[in-house]
Each structure stands twice: as C-alpha cells, then as structure tokens.
C-alpha cells in the first residue's frame, strides 16, 4: 500500500506516521504538521472543533493522494486528519510523504495540504472568549 488516509477523533501519533512512510528506498521524507494556534487575526483562540463529512472527506483525501502519486515519483503518502475538539498546540492534520529525492517529497507534501484545505469537506469552528465562528463561511 502506497497510501494511508485516516480520519479519526483521537490524537494523531506523528511517530507512527513517520514510521509508516519510511522505506529503504526513501532518501527524504517531508512532513507537514498542522497545529492549533492560540490566536487568529489577533483574537485569542482557546479551542477548535473539526467536523467532517466523513465518507466524502476520505474519498477526497484519497483523490489528492492519488493525484500526488501521479504527479511526482513518491514512495508513500500519508494523510491523517482529526475531528472533534482540539486545544491549542494539538494536531489536526499530518501529511507525510517519502520519496527517493527530496524535491518530490517537498512539492507533493505542499500540494497535498494546499489542496486538502480547498477541497476536503471538513469544517473548523474557532472558539473565542466572546463567541464562536465557522471559519471561511462568510466573505
């Protein structure tokens, strides 16, 4: 299996993600880890909540992984995304890509996170002291 896509509501184990993509043909691994920031546009955030349309989200993540495999010469591609409530510092998303040569790993990893943020049906709600808001919903 060259691709591992998972969506779940408990902590992402980054070490396991890295182990999964490592192969003896890999020369480089690029990993993107999203983390919950304590602020957005200057306002303090104390919690995030992620909701997913799970079957479609998984399908779209697989599409992105397959596109990356067709565009670059990669060993393995992993996409893990969390759902549910996350505190500041926690990890909503991990993308890990291994390749014989590092340029492919970097390009593919960045392509995957950029595309995921555009097409995968997952929604983030930010919780502030004075309220909460679904991100990106309004102009």
């Amino acid at each position: 299996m060259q691709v591992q896509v998972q969506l779940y509501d408990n902590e992402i184990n980054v070490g396991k993600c890295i182990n999964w993509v490592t192969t003896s043909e890999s020369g480089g691994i690029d990993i993107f880890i999203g983390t919950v920031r304590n602020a957005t546009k200057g306002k303090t955030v104390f919690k995030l909540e992620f909701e997913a349309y799970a079957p479609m989200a998984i399908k779209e993540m697989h599409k992105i992984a397959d596109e990356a495999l067709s565009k670059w010469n990669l060993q393995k591609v992993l996409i893990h995304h969390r759902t549910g409530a996350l505190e500041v510092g926690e990890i909503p998303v991990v993308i890990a890509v291994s390749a014989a040569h590092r340029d492919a790993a970097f390009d593919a990893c960045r392509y995957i996170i950029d595309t995921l943020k555009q097409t995968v049906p997952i929604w983030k709600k930010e919780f502030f002291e004075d309220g909460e808001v679904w991100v990106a919903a309004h102009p």
Partner: protein
Amino acid sequence: MDITLLAFGIAKDIFGASSVTVAVNEASPVSILKEKIELNYPKFKALKSYMVAVNNEYAADDLILSASDEVAIIPPVSGG
C-alpha cells in the same frame, strides 16, 4: 420527490438541524435544488459560497437528482 439534505458546519446552523428535507420535482437538476434551498433558507445567500455534493462527489448545477441520491450541502471548507 423529497430530497434529504445532509448539513455540515454553518449549513447545519442555518438549517437548525443536521439534515432537512426539501421537495423538488422529479428529475430536477442541482440548480433547482439550490434555488429551493435559498428560497426556504435565505441565509445561504450570505455565505461566501456553497457546493452541493451528490453521492460523495461535488455536483455540477446541471446534474439531475434522483430520490435515492445522498445529497449534502458543503459550505466553504476549512480543514487542515
């Protein structure tokens, strides 16, 4: 025919439910469904945009709906 709409994110807030049922004529395209949604729930016009997914795929406006389709409202995504 009745179409059951799954709702996520702000769409769920607008509907006040995680799914609602909307009636459209047999063989209506997605565009007609959207008109009906915006008529019944005018707040959708205030969204930056929204998409309709049919059977777990983003659907074009001219896709013809059938009663057995799984239809979801996809407000602007913000995962990652």
